């Protein structure tokens, strides 16, 4: 699975591409780690842009929780945006929709993190 990253005034937008399941969840977690470490400073957050994620299994969802725990411990946040319908349904079935703040667009998600990130997104 590919993990595309972009940065807007310190906020990181990560976009996993494809399916996230038992076979590749550990690799995904390893790929996620440097971005979480880089976002360790307070007020910096991570947006998981799921617009290209076709499917996520329980093991993949656990990666999201671990990322959120680490971000919270570092004073940051992980928010979710742009889920495809199937992934949105899985979030609802798993009750992950109650765990994460979910936004309909990357811009809305960045706006929840910081005004600087939104400005940077608008300028890009």
């Amino acid at each position, binding site marked *: 699975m590919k993990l595309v990253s972009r940065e807007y005034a310190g906020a990181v937008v990560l976009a996993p591409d494809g399916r996230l399941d*038992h076979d590749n*969840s*550990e690799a995904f977690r390893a790929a996620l780690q440097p971005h979480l470490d880089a976002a360790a400073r307070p007020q910096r957050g991570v947006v998981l842009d799921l617009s290209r994620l076709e*499917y996520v*299994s*329980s*093991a993949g*969802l*656990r990666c999201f*929780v671990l990322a959120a725990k680490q971000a919270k411990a570092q004073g940051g946040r992980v928010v979710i945006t742009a889920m495809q319908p*199937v992934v949105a*349904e*899985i979030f*609802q*079935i*798993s*009750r*992950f929709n*109650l*765990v994460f703040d979910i936004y309909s667009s990357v811009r809305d998600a960045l706006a929840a993190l910081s005004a600087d990130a939104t400005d940077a997104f608008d300028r890009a």
Partner: protein
Amino acid sequence: MRVRFWGTRGSIPVSLTWRDLRDRIAQALVAANGHDLDTLEKAHAFTETGLPFSTVRTYGGHSPCVELDLGGPSYFVCDMGSGARPFGAHVMARQAGAPAQLNVFMSHLHWDHVMGFPFLLPAYVPGTRVRIHGCHEGLEAAFVRQQEPPGFPVRFSQLGATFEFVRLVPGETVEVDGVRVTPKLQLHGGDSYGYRFEAGGRSVIYSTDSEHKLQDAAETHDFVAFFRNADLVIFDSMYSLAEAVSVKEDWGHSSNMVGVELCQLADVKHLVLFHHEPTHDDATIDRVLSETRRFEELTRDGAPLVVSSAYDGLEIAL
């Protein structure tokens, strides 16, 4: 083979309240408006087809007790939760005075899984033989202790039946009255053990009080191998996945989604959601079942996996 569910609730027994019953009657009356229901027969037929499960039935409240009826002279039963009381009544009725032979398999010794034993009537019948199988070192002590004063008026030593405690070893298959039984260590406080039963070309997995950490492929592989090609998997689905991996991590229970995934990987035919959360009412369990079936559709890659939710009184023929 028939599987009978005598107790399906996790942690502690629950029951409907008078408010629950009043609300259900009211819902049924509203739903019945305009139907011709002037006899009990018509009303019974209407309850079978015209009302949702959570109006006309209940998932029930007894803590775990599941019988495997193999058609032979001896009884096979998993756990001695409060469902052991109606199970014992069933044995007494079927035996009609004749002593029985019971094979009990204990997942673990937490209270909700042993609390029904003092009310197991066949244990009081001289001539009855009860073999209690398990992997825990303190198996016998747990049964004896809960009947010591001041907890219960009848000591274990006063029971009329003959008892034998059989220690099993995880991963080692034994044959018990013609049934192949394989225990498996599971993740739960103080350990728990799942059982794979094989007889007559059918296989049933009893896997309750088992947390799946999803940390590595080896753990998943082990359970997939344990479940492989089973006709029926009875699975601890007490929590949502979000609860199981966050606020209730390390509480020793699993979720409906992990049950579906493991059963699909193992080519299981039928998954039964089990060990229901005691705070969940029937409508909530109905909703979880509906969502689990939808998740199975979304993730299906082969033959469909049948998904059911266990309720006290459910019987499944294999």
